[in-house]
């Protein structure tokens, strides 16, 4: 056969055109195509999983329907399952505010479809803007919306993506009627770890960010319950009344996602009157009564427990307001929201003071940390002042302190002040436990950070004790199969492996990988860390063939799975090199070490403390390998580089670090990798 030369192949643009033809042309059903008893008329729109067409039915009834078909390019079986779940969810609901499912089936190519009532109307925000609706009309629409959501909740369905475009308003013979659409990410309210959870939790965030609740922004979709919908209803109320969002999230093009999520978690909602002032389409600012303000505040509480307990209760209050009645709610101004924790909890004052003192100390001993520690110190001092003032200390202050110290903590994990970090994290755990309760989500975060700090400090047994005490609580809260536990289990296994217990670590790593595979995840860093850990643990156990298989498979996945993570890939190559070295396959190991330490690649990796440390360790391992090969003349430059890159950052129990420090003197090097003239003359 004739093998085509490269120049005989289609040009990239032409090849891309052909690929697009293969992937796009079949997606759109042509007008006139028959789908079950329906005839496709036109394309209405495309969603994340489905394409929606307007279609007509002639027999046995004449009617127009919305036909939703699984997208042709739906990526995985998970997408298909999610599509089917939406269909099942809708079929279980029968309410005038929710489009009913009429029929369902499969296309000849196997894609599922379902037909539902065609809802023609206008998104609720556009309607209020265009219709210049009065306050009472808006409140009445919102009350209808809440009644519909309450019905879904009673049926055990949480919507999880309530936003204006999913709430249509139609003029139904002079009265306005609200319909709720798109139950594509809905899930059961009563069963925590059902299919929908597994299908929607992998990406951690479900819903539209502007309407995301603080708990989902912080803990992912696993934490969603009916109160998550209540929060979204509060945001919707704000938008319908003022056309503005209660929390300014910033422009998505310039504000990083993390920062937008942080604002959802931390920033207080602005008052309705302030939002309404000067906003086109908003109700007059002076028409907003304190009880309406209080109602929205209650919906938008950061702590779900403080929100309306049900959409039904919210609907009742909205209806009363629409009818001109008043509520027994009083808005809480800033100072009145102050929690008087300190006067009740003396421990807190001590803990905050400890954190502040540690921050001051850390900034004094490390110039590199001076700037961030300085900022943190100011925050800590402010927190302390607040604490002493008692009346002014709030949970926000504590969280502000937490935010301020985290960058410092992250740096301390890689420096020589790991014990300071441990002390700081222990104090923060106590503070958060005191303020929010021992099993609150924020406290959980602090407990985990404390365990991580212990692990980073080489205090493995203590870290394991903290992890093992907390794990049953987290399993109970999130469910044993929750993806949120994947990184935590990976950390536990890592801790065990480094504590010299690889045999205990292996089944945990395997559990993590089995779980992540079942839940469709593969490319995330925690999963990569698990693969790295499993390969290393197998290598530690002398099971080199299995270790190599895991490492090469992981490398293949990293090469083939988008997006490519340069650091993950480099770390996995480092593990593979280490396994090959242990298996006495030195030539291959050396090859990989040299590839990792090639100047251009090393330069790109050296910008992060963790990979800088890894570069140091790889250089040390290469130096050790060269030493063992009898090529001692090649050892010194790699040893110097290794010491220089890992200076003060390697964990004290790292054997390569110990070896490098032992060897430094013999090669005329100081512990930081610089030339040590005294050692040189002594060795000479």
């Amino acid at each position, binding site marked *: *056969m004739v093998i085509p030369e490269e120049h005989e192949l289609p040009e990239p643009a032409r090849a*891309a055109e052909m*690929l697009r033809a*293969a992937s796009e042309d079949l997606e759109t059903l042509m007008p006139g195509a028959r789908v079950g008893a329906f005839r496709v008329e036109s394309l209405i729109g495309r969603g994340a999983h489905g394409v929606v067409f307007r279609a007509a039915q002639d027999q046995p009834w004449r009617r127009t329907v919305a036909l939703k078909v699984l997208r042709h390019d739906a990526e*995985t079986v998970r997408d298909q399952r999610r599509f089917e779940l939406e269909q099942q969810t809708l079929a279980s609901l029968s309410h005038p505010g929710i489009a009913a499912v009429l029929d369902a089936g499969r296309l000849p190519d196997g894609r599922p479809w379902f037909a539902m009532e065609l809802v023609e109307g206008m998104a609720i925000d556009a309607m209020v803007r265009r219709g210049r609706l009065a306050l009472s009309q808006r409140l009445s629409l919102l009350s209808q919306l809440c009644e519909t959501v309450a019905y879904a909740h009673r049926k055990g369905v949480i919507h999880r993506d309530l936003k204006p475009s999913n709430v249509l308003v139609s003029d139904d013979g002079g009265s306005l009627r609200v319909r709720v659409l798109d139950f594509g990410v809905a899930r059961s309210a009563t069963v925590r770890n059902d299919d929908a959870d597994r299908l929607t939790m992998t990406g951690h965030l479900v819903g539209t960010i502007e309407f995301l609740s603080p708990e989902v922004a912080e803990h992912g979709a696993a934490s969603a319950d009916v109160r998550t919908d209540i929060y979204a209803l509060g945001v919707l109320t704000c938008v319908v009344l003022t056309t503005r969002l209660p929390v300014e999230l910033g422009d998505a093009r310039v504000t990083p996602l993390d920062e937008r999520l942080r604002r959802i978690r931390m920033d207080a909602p602005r008052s309705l009157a302030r939002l309404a002032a000067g906003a086109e389409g908003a109700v007059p600012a002076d028409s907003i009564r304190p009880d309406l303000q209080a109602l929205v505040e209650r919906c938008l509480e950061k702590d779900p427990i403080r929100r309306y307990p049900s959409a039904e209760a919210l609907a009742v209050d909205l209806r009363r307001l629409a009818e001109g009645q008043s509520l027994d709610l009083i808005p809480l101004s800033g100072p009145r929201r102050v929690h008087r924790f300190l006067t009740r909890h003396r421990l807190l004052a001590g803990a905050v003071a400890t954190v502040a003192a540690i921050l001051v100390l850390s900034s004094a001993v490390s110039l590199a940390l001076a700037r961030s520690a300085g900022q943190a110190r100011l925050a800590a001092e402010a927190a302390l002042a607040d604490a002493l003032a008692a009346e002014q200390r709030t949970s926000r202050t504590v969280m502000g302190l937490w935010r301020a110290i985290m960058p410092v903590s992250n740096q301390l994990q890689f420096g020589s002040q790991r014990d300071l970090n441990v002390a700081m994290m222990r104090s923060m755990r106590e503070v958060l436990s005191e303020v929010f309760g021992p099993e609150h989500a924020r406290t959980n975060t602090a407990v985990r950070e404390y365990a991580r700090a212990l692990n980073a400090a080489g205090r493995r047994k203590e870290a394991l004790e903290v992890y093992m005490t907390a794990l049953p609580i987290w399993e109970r809260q999130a469910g044993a199969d929750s993806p949120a536990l994947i990184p935590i289990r990976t950390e536990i296994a890592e801790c065990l492996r480094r504590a010299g217990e690889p045999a205990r670590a292996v089944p945990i790593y395997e559990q993590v990988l089995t779980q992540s595979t079942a839940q469709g995840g593969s490319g995330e860093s925690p999963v990569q860390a698990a693969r790295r850990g499993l390969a290393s643990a197998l290598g530690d156990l002398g099971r080199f063939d299995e270790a190599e298989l895991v490492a090469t498979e992981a490398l293949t996945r990293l090469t083939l799975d*988008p997006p490519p993570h340069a650091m993950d890939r480099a770390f996995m190559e480092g593990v593979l090199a280490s396994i090959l070295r242990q298996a006495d396959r030195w030539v*291959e190991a050396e090859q990989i070490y040299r590839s990792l330490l090639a100047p251009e690649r090393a330069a790109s990796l050296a910008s992060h403390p963790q990979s800088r440390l890894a570069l140091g360790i790889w250089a040390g391992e290469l130096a050790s390998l060269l030493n063992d090969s009898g090529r001692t003349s090649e050892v010194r430059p790699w040893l110097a580089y290794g010491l220089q890159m890992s200076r003060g950052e390697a964990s004290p129990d790292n054997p390569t670090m110990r070896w490098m420090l032992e060897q430094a003197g013999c090669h005329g090097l100081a512990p930081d990798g610089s030339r040590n003239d005294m050692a040189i003359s002594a060795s000479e």
Partner: protein
Amino acid sequence: METAERPELFPSTPSSMLLHCRGPDCDGRRQVVRRIMGIYASPLAAYLRSTSFRRFGDPAEMVNGFFASRLDDDQYLVRWVSSGIRLRRWLINGLLLYLHEQVRSERRHRRLGVLPESLAAAVDRGFEQVYARSLVQQAMDIARARCEAEGQSLHWASFLARHGDAGALAALRQAHGLSSGQSSHMVRVATARFRKALVELVLLDGATPGEADLEIQRLLRSLGS
């Protein structure tokens, strides 16, 4: 590509076929080997051209040598099937190993052979792009052959015209007196054949049927789209 090939014999599940059809006399196996060479030779040669292996000879010849050395062994592809990794990755690794062996045999007295490329740096952008182009070319060849075998040359011509310049389809329609509906139908039939061929080739590389669309999207990205 020989047009005499019987496309219907090309297995839609090459992996399972390989496990049951071994030996050089197996017709299906020969087809698979030919297809593999057709798809992967150019990308592998392009890959070698971007590495320091190019110092050791003509990349196309090195790739041919590799195929001759490995694909004659019917266990080679059986081992690939059991490896569970993508064929292109398997071939790249195999090619590197083959070249390492060649280099070592030439420099066997040195302690450390010159091993210019690491395993992990294997799959690069250049390879992926040429691989995508090669796959498209092969899929077009298969789809064209299938259209011709069904007496649907005009369908294929319509498909090419539809995805060529804007005026070409209208001219074709006029020349053959086709209505807009007829023409659209022909394009859809040929598109379906092209897509089917493309999916088969993607499956040959080791993707599962559920991953085929994702793989096509990945090919698109590798072409800079």
